[in-house]
C-alpha cells in the first residue's frame, strides 16, 4: 500500500507539471489582454503598457515560464492579476465549499442512486424498472441551471423552506439550509448516473452462477441481492462514480452560480473571463491534484470492496 501511494504521488507530481505547462501556454494563446480587463476600457495605452510591465507580461514567454516555475517550486503561486490577492489564498478560501457540496451530493447520489438501480434491476422490464429508467434519464438530461432555478422557485419562493442565496454559516440549521438545495441539484445528476450504472452492473451479476446457487440453497432473496450481488456489482459502480466525481467538481459551476455559493467552478470561470493567468494556472494544478486524489481514493476503494484486488 505504501509503495502504491508513493508511486501515485510521484505520478501526481509529473501530471501536475505537465498540466501546468499546458495551461501556461494555452491561456496565453487565447486572445484577450489581462491589463485591459484590470484597468478598464478607458485606460490609455501607456497605462496598459505600464501594467503589462509590472505584471511581467511584456517578458518573453520562456522567461515568464521560468519565473512561474521557480515560484511554484518554492510554493509561491503568485497573486491574482485582477485582485492582487495571493492565488493560493483565494483557492483555499473556496475549496472547502466545493468539497462540501461535492461530498454531500455524492452521498445523496449514492443513497438514492444505488437502491433505485438495484430495484430497477430486480424488477427488470416491469413498470418500476421503466419508471426508474425514465426518471434517471430525466435527471441526466435536465441542465443543472434549469433544475436549480426550478428548485429555487419551488422551495425558496413558493414554500419558503430555504433561502435563495445559499451561502450561510453559523449554525447547523444555517448550514443545512445552505447546502440542501445545491446538494439536491447536483445530487439529482449523480443519482441518475449511479442509478443507470448500478442497474447495468446488477443485471450482469444477477445472471452469475453463484446467485443461482445461493437461491437454490434457500438464501433469502433480499440477502442475495443486497449482501451478495450488490457487493460484486460494486467495482463498476465505484469506477464510474470516481470518474464522474472528478467531472462533477468542474460541473458544479452552474450550481454555484445559481445558488450563489462560493466554489472552484465560479473561481475558474471568473479567472477565464478576466484572463487572470496566474489564477488559471493555480486552479488547473489544483484541479489536477483533486482528480488524481479521487483516482487514488477510487483505487483504494477497489481494494476494500474486492479482497482479490491488491494495491501495488
Amino acid at each position, binding site marked *: 500500500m505504501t509503495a502504491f501511494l508513493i508511486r501515485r504521488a510521484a505520478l501526481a507530481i509529473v501530471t501536475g507539471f505537465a498540466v501546468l505547462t499546458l495551461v501556461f501556454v494555452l491561456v496565453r494563446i487565447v*486572445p484577450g489582454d489581462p491589463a485591459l480587463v484590470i484597468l*478598464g476600457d478607458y485606460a490609455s*495605452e501607456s*497605462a496598459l503598457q505600464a501594467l503589462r510591465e509590472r505584471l511581467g507580461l511584456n517578458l518573453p514567454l520562456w522567461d515568464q515560464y521560468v519565473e512561474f516555475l521557480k515560484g511554484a517550486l518554492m510554493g509561491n503561486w503568485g497573486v491574482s492579476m485582477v485582485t492582487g*490577492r495571493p492565488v493560493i489564498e483565494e483557492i483555499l478560501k473556496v475549496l472547502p465549499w466545493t468539497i462540501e457540496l461535492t461530498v454531500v451530493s455524492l452521498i445523496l447520489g449514492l443513497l438514492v442512486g444505488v437502491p433505485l438501480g438495484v430495484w430497477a434491476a430486480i424488477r427488470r422490464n416491469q413498470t418500476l424498472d421503466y419508471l426508474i429508467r425514465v426518471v434517471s434519464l430525466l435527471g441526466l438530461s435536465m441542465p443543472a441551471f434549469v433544475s436549480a432555478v426550478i428548485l*429555487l422557485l419551488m422551495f425558496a419562493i413558493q414554500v419558503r423552506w430555504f433561502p435563495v442565496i445559499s451561502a450561510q454559516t453559523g449554525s447547523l440549521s444555517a448550514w443545512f439550509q445552505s447546502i440542501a438545495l445545491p446538494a439536491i441539484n447536483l445530487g439529482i445528476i449523480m443519482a441518475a448516473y449511479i442509478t443507470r450504472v448500478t442497474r447495468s452492473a446488477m443485471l450482469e451479476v444477477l445472471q452469475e452462477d453463484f446467485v443461482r446457487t445461493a437461491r437454490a440453497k434457500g438464501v433469502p432473496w433480499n440477502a442475495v441481492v443486497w449482501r451478495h450481488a450488490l457487493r460484486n456489482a460494486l467495482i463498476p459502480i465505484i469506477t464510474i462514480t470516481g470518474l464522474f466525481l472528478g467531472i462533477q467538481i468542474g460541473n458544479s459551476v452552474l450550481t454555484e452560480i445559481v*445558488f*450563489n455559493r462560493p466554489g472552484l467552478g465560479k473561481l475558474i470561470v471568473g479567472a477565464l473571463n478576466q484572463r487572470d493567468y496566474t489564477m488559471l494556472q493555480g486552479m488547473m494544478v489544483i484541479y489536477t491534484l483533486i482528480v488524481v486524489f479521487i483516482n487514488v481514493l477510487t483505487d483504494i476503494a477497489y481494494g476494500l470492496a474486492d479482497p482479490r484486488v491488491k494495491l501495488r
Partner: protein
Amino acid sequence: MIRRVVASAAFAVMLVGLSGQAEAQKRNLVIATSQSDAGKLDPHLASAGADKGLLNYVFNALVRIKPGEANPEFIEPDLAESWTVNPAGIEWTFKIRSGVQCHDGTEFTATDAAYSLQRSSTKATSAFSGDFSALDKAEAVDKNTLKVTLKNPIPSLLGLLSNYHGGLMVCKKAAEEAGDGFGKKPIGTGPFMFVEYQPQQFVKLTANKKYWRGAPKIDEITYRYVPSDATRDLAFRNGEVDMVFGRQTDQWVQRTKDIPGVKVVAMEPAELNVLHLNMAMKPLDDIRVREAIAHAIDRKAMVQFGGPEATREAVSVIPNGNLGLNPKTPLADYNIEKAKKLLADAGYPNGVTIKSVASTLPVLFRISETVQGQLSKAGIKLDIEPVDHPTYHANIRKDLSGVTLYQAARFPVADTYLSQFYYSKSIVGTPTAVTNFSHCTAADKEIEAARSEPNVERQKALWFAAQEKIAKEFCSVPFSESLVIWAWRDSLDFGYPMKGSLNLMPHLTEKAQFTK
C-alpha cells in the same frame, strides 16, 4: 374585577409590544450586484463598476457630485470646504475641512490629500494616472491648505477631484502601512467602514459613527455578489436583498415594478450605444459608405427594441447629459433609399460586406444582431465575428473590426468622450491609443482648443463645433442610450431624490435610512 385587571394588563403588554415593533426599524441594508466577486478594493485601482460604487461609501473626495445627481454642474464641497484658482487656471488652493477622522482614528489633513493625489497620478499605484497627466504637483501648505499646481489648464479639474475614479482620498498612514495590500482593508473617511470580505460572497461595511457629516442611520451594509440574474431577481423578490442591480430591459422593469413595495429607477448616466466606423478599413474609407450606414439605422426602432423605460434616443456623438453636449448635432435621418443610392454612388450597387467584431456579452450581442438586421435592409451585410468580451476588447484595439458597436459612458464633460473616442492621439494601435476605433481626426483642432479655453461659452462653442464636424464626417453612428437600472424597497429613503450616480450605483450617504 380580577378579569378586568388581567384584561387591562394584557392590553398594556400588547401596546408595549406593538410600540416596540413600531420602533424596531430596519437598519441593515443588503445590496446585490451582478459582479461575480470583488476586484481591487483600492479606490485608485478599482475599475469595475461594482467596486467603484462600493468604495464611494467608504471614501470621500475633495469635492463631490451632489448625491442623486450625475452632472458635474452639481459639484459641491466634500473634504474641501472651499477653493480658489488663479486667473491662469493653473494654481488651485483648497481649504481642507478640520476635524475629519480616518477610519483608523487618524486625522485627515492636507498632507493626506497631497499624498492621495500623488498616489492617484502615479502609474504604479493608480489605474487613473492618465487622467492626472496635467498635474504638476500637490503640496500641503499647512494642515488645512492644499495647493494643486497644473502644467496647463484643463477643462474640469474639479471633475477629476470629485468622488469618481482617482479623486477619492485615501489616508496616508493607512495606505503607506498597507502598501500593495491596501485593497484588502481599505481605510477612508466615508460614512461606512470596511469590516470584512468573504470571497465570492460579500463585502460587509459598518456605520462610521464618527462620520463628520453625522452618524449614518444605516448600521450595516452587506454588499453581495450575485452574478446570476435569476438568483438576484428571486432573492429580491423573496426579501433577502433590499437593493438590486437590474437588467436594462423593459420586461425586467415592468416585472419588478409589479412587486409590491418596490421602486425601480432608470438612472443617469446613460451609456451611449454607437457604431464606430473604421475609416482605415475599406470600404469605410469612403464617406458615402459611412453615410449609407448612418441612414440605414433607425434610432427610434432601436429605442423601441431596447424598451423606452431603459433606453432613449441618442442626440449627439457624445452621451446626453454631458457638459458641452450639442443638442443640434446633425445626425442622419433614417432613409433606406438614400442609403442604397449612396452605396451605388460609391460603387456598391449590389451591397457591401463589412466585418464587425462583436462581444457575446448578451446585452451587447442582441444589439449587434439588431443592427445587422437593420443594415441588411440597405444591402449592407454586417459580417459579425462573435467573440467573448475580453477578446472583443483586445481585437477591436488591434484594429480588426470595421464596424465596432461600443456602449460606454464617461465623466460627463464633453472633452472626456471626445478625446477618448474622436481625437487623433487616441487612435487604436498607436502608442497613445485609447478608444478611437474610427481613426477619426475631423475635430482635432476644436478638441485641443477647447481643452485650454478659459472662457466657458467659447469652450462650449468649440465642443459644439467638434460634435458637428464628427457627425458630418460620419466617424460614428450613435443611435441610442441605455440607462442604468436599479430597484430597491420603497421603505429605503436615500435622503435625496435619486436621479443618477456617476459610479453607476446609488450613492448611499449618512442620510439613507429605512422608514419602516
